[in-house]
Every structure is written in C-alpha cells, then in structure tokens.
C-alpha cells in the first residue's frame, strides 16, 4: 500500500480508524487537536460511523471513552498534557476499573512550552496510574503502537497511555498502513460489577492491577518497541526514550552509534534491559524527551557507583525539549551551531489578529479600569491571554482552564473589589460554570466577562460547546437577569459599552458581561469556503 504523508497526530488518528475504534473523544488542545480533527474530516471514519465531535472538556471526554469501553467497543480519548490534569480523576480510576473494549488515552506533552503554560511529563501520570505507556519515536511507530495498544488493552483489560510530544505531533513523515480491523460488537463486561469502585470491589481490582504489573513489564521486555542495540565501545551506554533516540542517531547517521544503545518506547521500564546495559557499560548517558523520569529511577537515593549523566547532573539541560545539538554536546561531539542571530533581529511575539473582537473588548475594559488601581483582572486560557501583552497589558493571571472566575472570586473575598474575570465562551463551558455557581451561591462581588467569539479560537476554530447557550446557562446557574449584558465589541459602541461595564463593576454582586462577535479567523475561513463552493 502507498505511504501516506501524515503528521504524528494524523498517524495516530488513521491507526485508530484502522484498529476499529467506535468513537474518539477530546477537547481541543495543542499539540493534540489534529488527532480528533483528522477523524472528523475522514470519509472512512464517517462511513464506519465513528463518533468524533468535541467534548465539553477532557474529564467528560475521558469518562465517555470509558463508558464506550464498558460497552465493549474500542475508544480513544485525546488531550494535551494539562488536559490530563483535568481528566485525572477518571484517568487514575480507570486503571482500577480496567477496560472492557480496548481504550487508549493519548496525552500530548509540550516540552519547551511552545503553546502551553507548563511542560509536565505525562509519563508520571501513566506510572502513577500503573498502566502501560507507549512513547513513539516516529510517525510509523505512532501508527503501529495504536494497533498494539488496543491489542494489550483488550488482552489485559486495561487502558493504555500513548504519550507523544509536540515535535512528533506536528511533524510529517511517510506512514504505511496495516490491516483494518472491524469494530467490536456491543458486549458488556463479563462481571457487571467490574466498574463499580465500592471499596470492597476496588480493593480486589487494585490487587489485580498490582498483579498485572509483571505482565506489563513482560510486554515491555518482549514487544520489540524497547530495543537494545549493541555497540563496540562499552565506555558509554546510552538510554534514549521517545524522540531522544532520533536526536542521538542523527549524530551518527549511516555509520551507526559506536556505543550500546537502549531505546525505550514502552513502560513500565524494562528492568532486565536496563540491567543489561548498566552492567555492560562504564557510564550511562540519559536522553529523555521530558522530565528525567528514568534517570531518577536509575540514580535512586542510594547512588551506586555507576556514573549516570543526563538532566540531573547538567550534561543535558534540566528543562525544555531535546534536539540533535543537545545530544551532540552530551556525547562530547562538536556543536555545529552556525552564525549567531544578528542583533537587529527582534522577537515577534504572537498577537491578536487585526479585526479580532477581543481587541475591542480589552480596549473597553481597559478604559473603564483606568479609574481603579491596577492588578484586578483574572484571565483564562485562550487567544485572549494575549491581553497580557502591550498595548493592552490588562491581564494579571492565567493559570488553568476556568481559573479566571474562581480566582477573581477569591481575590474579591480577600477585599480586592471589584474583581474582574475574563474567560472565553468555550473555556467557560469547559470549566467555568461550576465556578460561576460558587460566585452566585456566595453572592461574590465579581464582574465576569465571557468573550463570545463563537469558537475555540486558539486551537484553530473548533466548535464551541457554548454556542447559543451562554445567557441560558448563566440564568440557570442563578445570575440575576438584569446583571447579564450582551455587548457588541466594536469601536463605534465604545462609549456605550464603557457605561455598562462601569455600572456592573460598581454592582456588589455577580455580573456577567458577554461581548459577542465571531472570531475573525473563522469568518474568513467560512467566506473562503463559500467562494470555493461558488467557483465549483
């Protein structure tokens, strides 16, 4: 079969379709978004009836995927690393319920924080939950691992984590497809209390999970994804995980690496293989894309005499993603870095698009806030986070999805009144509603801006679960109707909007202001699509 040129994300999606999933669940988040988008746009997926629309957040996505697994069908759930924090509760517990139909959890990490607020390593979570983790080094392996992942998920009745990072997610390469498998039939678990985590049942299931660890380790030793490559020069042995392996091999090319190499792409850690390379070699170099997880395990507290170089001793930088040059320097090879960047080159940070409705919303808000002392705007995750940068310089916090409303609440209760929250429409339905309920129940003095651009903008314009529902949700939660205002964020309504904002900031209760205008990018895209239709 001809090779497809696919992003790592797309290879995972194509593999999921080929491996016979019945549904994929996700909330958009860079660098995981394109997995679900690929399934949504796939004709094949449509023909096979694979469900794929966006979930309200990662927790609802994880639970729905687990429900599909309960019913005996294969499911996939995808999220960025911080999305796994949101889904942590069902994720960790799904290891104890186990799976019925095959279930894969894709966690896409973003080392170097290209588009994220932190660079946590999801392998910690997989280890915490004690489930098998697969960490592909390239697009083909990502494709193959999805097939294998469903196999072991159904063999051991356990959800499997597929951990990827930005460079794999957003890099294209040729991928060969495998045989396509049919979807599973509806088939409930043999034991209908398998998913009931009452203490008596959970204790038993937990013991099963613990017992299964030796099986998972046996898989890690024998699946072939972890591989020991012998080398003549035993002065050094290299343990490289995920993309670390590519950066290592880039430095040797066709000649091959002269040192023994252990490529790790599956967890739990293959202890026998680790022992082998550590016994063979005088020193070990660790190349891990992410946190020094294997390195810490090897070093432990009671350090043995083996020298282990890596992120912990400064051989490799402690933070950020790896690259071929970092690997070169760690190997003692020459750094091939070219000329420096000329000093006249200045940074070009991302900015709100020309015509973006958030610009007008911030200009309205900023003008009104000029009357108050600074430092009272709690923002959220989305394009509008860019309101922290000049010329707006309005935002004082961005922490996690939904934190704007609840942090404004806490600050207001500490005496910082009025406190302002700024949250997008999609972020509001992701994690803002419960915080709003807290505000209403406490009658907190907060003014909440829900910037409604009718889309999930930052990740590329996906459907927003909030579309057409925001006022009803606010009313339903208990916000007084006369303190819910919809504004048109346009220059010509500046004065009018300012008056409403002034009035609501002064109100000592919960106000919701909804500046509403569609994202300039999604409008542009719709117009383009229309034009293309007409031309046809």
């Amino acid at each position, binding site marked *: 079969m001809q*090779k497809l*040129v696919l*992003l790592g994300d797309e290879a995972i999606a194509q593999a999921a379709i080929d491996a016979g999933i019945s549904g994929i669940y996700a909330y958009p988040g*860079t*660098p995981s*978004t*394109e997995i679900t988008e690929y399934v949504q746009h796939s004709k094949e997926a449509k023909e096979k009836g694979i469900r794929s629309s966006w979930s309200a957040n990662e927790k609802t996505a994880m639970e729905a995927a687990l429900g599909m697994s309960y019913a005996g069908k294969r499911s996939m759930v995808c999220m960025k690393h911080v999305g796994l924090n949101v889904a942590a509760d069902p994720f960790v517990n799904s290891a104890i319920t186990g799976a019925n139909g095959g279930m894969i959890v894709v966690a896409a990490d973003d080392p170097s924080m*290209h*588009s994220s607020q932190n660079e946590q390593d999801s392998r910690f979570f997989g280890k915490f939950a004690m489930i098998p983790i697969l960490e592909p080094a390239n697009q083909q392996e990502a494709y193959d691992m999805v097939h294998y992942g469903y196999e072991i998920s159904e063999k051991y009745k356990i959800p499997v984590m597929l951990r990827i990072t930005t*460079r*794999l997610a*957003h*890099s*294209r*390469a*040729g991928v060969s497809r495998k045989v396509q498998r049919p979807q599973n039939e509806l088939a409930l678990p043999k034991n209908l209390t398998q998913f009931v985590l009452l203490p008596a049942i959970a204790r038993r299931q937990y013991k099963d999970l613990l017992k299964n660890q030796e099986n998972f380790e046996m898989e890690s030793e024998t699946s072939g994804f972890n591989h020991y490559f012998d080398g003549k020069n035993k002065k050094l042995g290299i343990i490289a995980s995920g*993309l670390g*392996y*590519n*950066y290592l*091999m*880039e*430095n040797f*090319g*066709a000649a091959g690496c002269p040192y023994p190499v252990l490529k790790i792409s599956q967890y739990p850690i293959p202890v026998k293989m680790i022992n082998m390379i550590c016994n063979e070699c005088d020193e070990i170099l660790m190349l891990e894309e992410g946190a020094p997880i294997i390195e810490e395990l090897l070093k432990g507290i009671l350090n043995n005499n083996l020298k282990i170089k890596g992120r912990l001793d400064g051989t490799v930088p402690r933070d950020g993603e790896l*690259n*071929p*040059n970092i690997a*070169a320097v760690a190997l003692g090879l020459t*750094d*091939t*870095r*070219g*000329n*420096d*960047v*000329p000093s*006249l*080159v*200045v*940074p*070009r*940070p*991302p*900015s*709100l*698009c020309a015509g973006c409705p958030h610009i007008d919303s911030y200009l309205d808000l900023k003008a009104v806030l000029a009357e108050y002392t600074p430092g009272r705007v709690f923002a959220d995750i989305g*394009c509008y986070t*860019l309101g922290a940068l000049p010329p707006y310089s309005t935002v004082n916090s961005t922490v996690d999805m939904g934190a704007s409303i609840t942090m404004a609440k806490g600050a207001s209760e500490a005496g910082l009144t009025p406190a302002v929250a700024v949250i997008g429409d999609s972020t509001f339905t992701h994690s803002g509603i419960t915080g709003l309920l807290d505000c209403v129940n406490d009658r907190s003095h907060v003014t909440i801006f829900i910037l409604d651009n009718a889309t999930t903008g*930052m*990740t*590329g314009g996906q459907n927003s679960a909030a579309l057409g529902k925001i006022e009803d949700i606010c009313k339903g939660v208990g916000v007084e109707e006369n303190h819910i205002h919809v504004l048109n964020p346009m220059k010509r309504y500046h004065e009018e909007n300012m008056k409403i904002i002034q009035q609501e900031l002064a109100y000592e209760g919960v106000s919701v202001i909804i500046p509403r205008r569609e994202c300039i990018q999604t409008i542009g895209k719709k117009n383009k699509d229309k034009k*293309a239709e007409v*031309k*046809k």
Partner: protein
Amino acid sequence: MKKDIILAGVGGQGILSIASVIGIAAVNLGLNLKQAEVHGMSQRGGDVQSHLRLSDKIIYSDLIPYGKADMIISVEPMESLRYLPYLSPDGWIITNDKPFVNISNYPPPENVSNELSARKNSISIDADKIAKEAGSLKSANMVILGASSPFLDIDYGKLEEAIRFIFGRKGDDVVNVNLKAMKAGREIAEKR
C-alpha cells in the same frame, strides 16, 4: 541526496504551502521526508518556521541540527536572519525582501537588507511585486519557492505537478496564478 530546508515567515504568510509543494514533489520522487511545523499560539502573527528534511536515506530527527541546513527559504527578510544558527557555512538564503511589519520595533528595512547582502550566499527578491504581476499578491510564497527551485535538486516539472495537485481543488485560475508566480521567481533567481 539530502536537503535540509528551514522555511521561515510570519504566521499566515503561507510557508506551509511551500512545504507542501516541495514535500509532495519529493514523495513522488520516492524520497524520505520529515517536516516539523509550528501549530498553535505562534500562528497568531508570531514568527513561524518549518523544518523540511528530504533524503534518500533514513531521516532520524524531525529537527534539522544547527549548522546543517542547506537553505533558508523565507517569505520575510528579518525572519530569514532569525534562523542563521541553523544554516551550514555553504548554505543559501532565499528570501522575500518585503518587510512584514506587525511590531513597533521592527528594525530599519535598509539595515535588514544590508545584513542580508553581507551574507555569503543570499538572494533577496521583491516577491510581493512579482506576485502581483503574476496575478495575485497571495502567491508571493510561490515566487519565493520558484526562486529557491534551482537549489532544490528536484525536477522542476515535479514541482509544477505538485502545485496542480495541491491547488487543483480551488480551480484552474488559482493553479495557473501559482504556476506563473513560481516560474517568475525561478527566472529571477536564474538571472542572478
């Protein structure tokens, strides 16, 4: 055969279309390919880059090592200079010389072009003007691709084929404008 190419520009300038054309041509020639892209936050008017790697051998890294890029292809002059640490000592810079100014502290354009002409191997062209003459300002990226084409070691016909494949969905007019733009860019580079 090995070509490591840094594609540079500002979010929205169409560097990924250049990557697609070269990529499809390369795959049709049976070459291996890896292409790392930037998605997400930076696409909002920030600096963006793509690492495009072609080879008849196995390609390990998705990222080009520093000092190993054969070319920097850029649709914006200052952006072409941002990636100099990646350029090999004999590598070429092919760039649009039309600044894209969306920041208040953009350096004086003449300083940028002086910096570029001080480089060993660089070609700067007014791709915007040439694209307009070819029929659409939007095809400035294809002008730059055309100017880079003599250095690519890829049969020119294969690039034309790739343009027809990618833009075919949008109709013959769009295909022809892009073909014309690429041709105009190539002619200019060949004259230098």
